[in-house]
């Protein structure tokens, strides 16, 4: 479990770190080297790619959970708590 969390944290950093320079640059005073519109829209699209990727994973997981663990699924079995009647 710790390994998974570590990999997750590393992946998160790999997404965030490259973005930080753009965020900081966008906050600087007007310079001749940056076209802010291009940088900001570039950052927007990068974040959208992250959001849609994570969104696809989460939504897919929700759909799978709904289909797999519905009580009408042939593989559905009573949970261990149903015997005792309290959960």
């Amino acid at each position, binding site marked *: 479990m710790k390994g998974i969390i570590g990999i997750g944290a590393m992946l998160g950093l790999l997404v965030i770190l490259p973005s930080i320079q*753009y*965020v900081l640059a*966008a*906050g600087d005073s007007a310079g001749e080297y940056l076209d*802010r519109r291009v*940088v*900001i*829209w570039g*950052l*927007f699209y990068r*974040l*959208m790619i992250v*959001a849609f990727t*994570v*969104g696809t994973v*989460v*939504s897919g*997981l*929700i759909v799978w*959970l*709904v289909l797999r*663990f*519905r*009580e009408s699924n042939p593989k*559905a*079995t*009573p*949970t*261990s*708590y*149903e015997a005792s*009647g*309290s*959960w």
Partner: protein
Amino acid sequence: MVLELQKPRPIWQIMFSTHHTDVGLLYLITSLAFMFMGGALALLLRVELFSPGVQIIADSMTYNRIFTVHGTTLIFLFILPSASAFGNYLVPIMVRFKDMAYPKLNAVAFWMIPPAGALIWLGFADFTWYAYPTYSVISAPGPAADMWIFGLKILGVSSILGSINFVVTIMKCKHPDLPLSKMPLLAWAYLTSSLITLVAVPTFAAALLMLLTDRLGASGFFNPAMGGDPIAYQHLFWFTFHPEVYILVIPAIGFMYEIFPRFSRKPIFSHSSGVAAFTLLTIVGFASWAHHMYATGMSFTEKTVFMVGTLAAVPASAMHTFNFLATMWGGRIKFATPIMWAVGGIALFFSAGAGGVVNSAMPLDFITHDSYWVVGHFHLFVMGTILFGTVGFVYYFFPYVTGRMYSEVLGKVHFILSFVGTVLVFFTQHILGLFGMPRRIYDYPPIPEWVQMNIIISIGAFIIGIGMAIFLVNLIWSSAKGKPADMDDPFGLGGKYYFPYQAKNPSH
């Protein structure tokens, strides 16, 4: 539980009761009435925006009045009272106490809502639910604006009284055998959201007073002509109303913490992470208010602080989502109406959160600021998460209040229409914002993309409206003619429900 509709009593006996279930019922009926009223105003707005040009609303002032009352009604007269409704019903039962700590104060807190609602609706102010100066100080017309201010003032006092009652009931009247660590997560939701209310709302109460004296010309806190600073109002407003977002959403998440384990037939995956996430949200809710104000000329450092403060809410929200999904994992889920709303709610909660991360990144905020993106994000949050959680819980709670079952078919049709409508309306509004359409406009030029998206949004709104009409019919018809519910197990899930001990209502 109470069975008001199975054992009819004279209405005055409920109205003047101080028993927590009676006050809960009053809160519930009032909040649902305001939900339908506020929703009807939203449909008027969408008819007007269906296509460019004037449709049904005569002028921009009337349009502004309608969307002001729409927002004020749904936030202050629907969401907050509906949370109080279920809190009144359940908190004393969950902490095993006979009633709320201060029953009379509880009834007083409720009875402040109808006059406040009357002030807001009879005034019909036009300065949005923000009431930003300078317009609200200098130009907003006469009695309407003042009535709105008094209405909000009353609602603020009502919220504070209700929160004091929840905190004292939980902290002081809780059964000695029930440690806080074992208290149900819904009760935790009420504890944390009440604490936020107690810290946040007095600030807005002060701001309203300053706004009123500014309008009367007695002071100039927010009036630049008298040396005041309109931006100061925004800070005071958002210091209250960003935490207010958590006041609104935490009970809805608490409702989901009741629904998911119940219908998954297994306990919540992690009680302690739910408690931690509620506590974390309570704290970080106060670290992000100025992300609503990136465009007001704050320094880069200030904006960075508030951006980081905003993003701090992401782990807590993710903990809740993970908890729900992990609870479903390995369960044997009965997809009755309440859990359909809860599952839809978490899917939309995630989408709203993703949009929120974009807003909170300050460079990106300049793309979306004051555009329809913001409207889409906010509404996806309040409708997609809070209303979905609340409506799901209304269905869940229906048999306990009425002793009858709602129509499952109509409940599911309501869910499907609402989910499809919500996606059509609020996802499209995000895209419309990126295409540059500003919010709060009465009319718009016939730019083809804007026209197409506005038509889609209006159609989505009508679909939601049809769903809500079905909901209303289901509530009324089923409470009178619905199948009598098995009060020990109305959803046929087996097991013992851990909270519906019989509330000892002296009128029964």
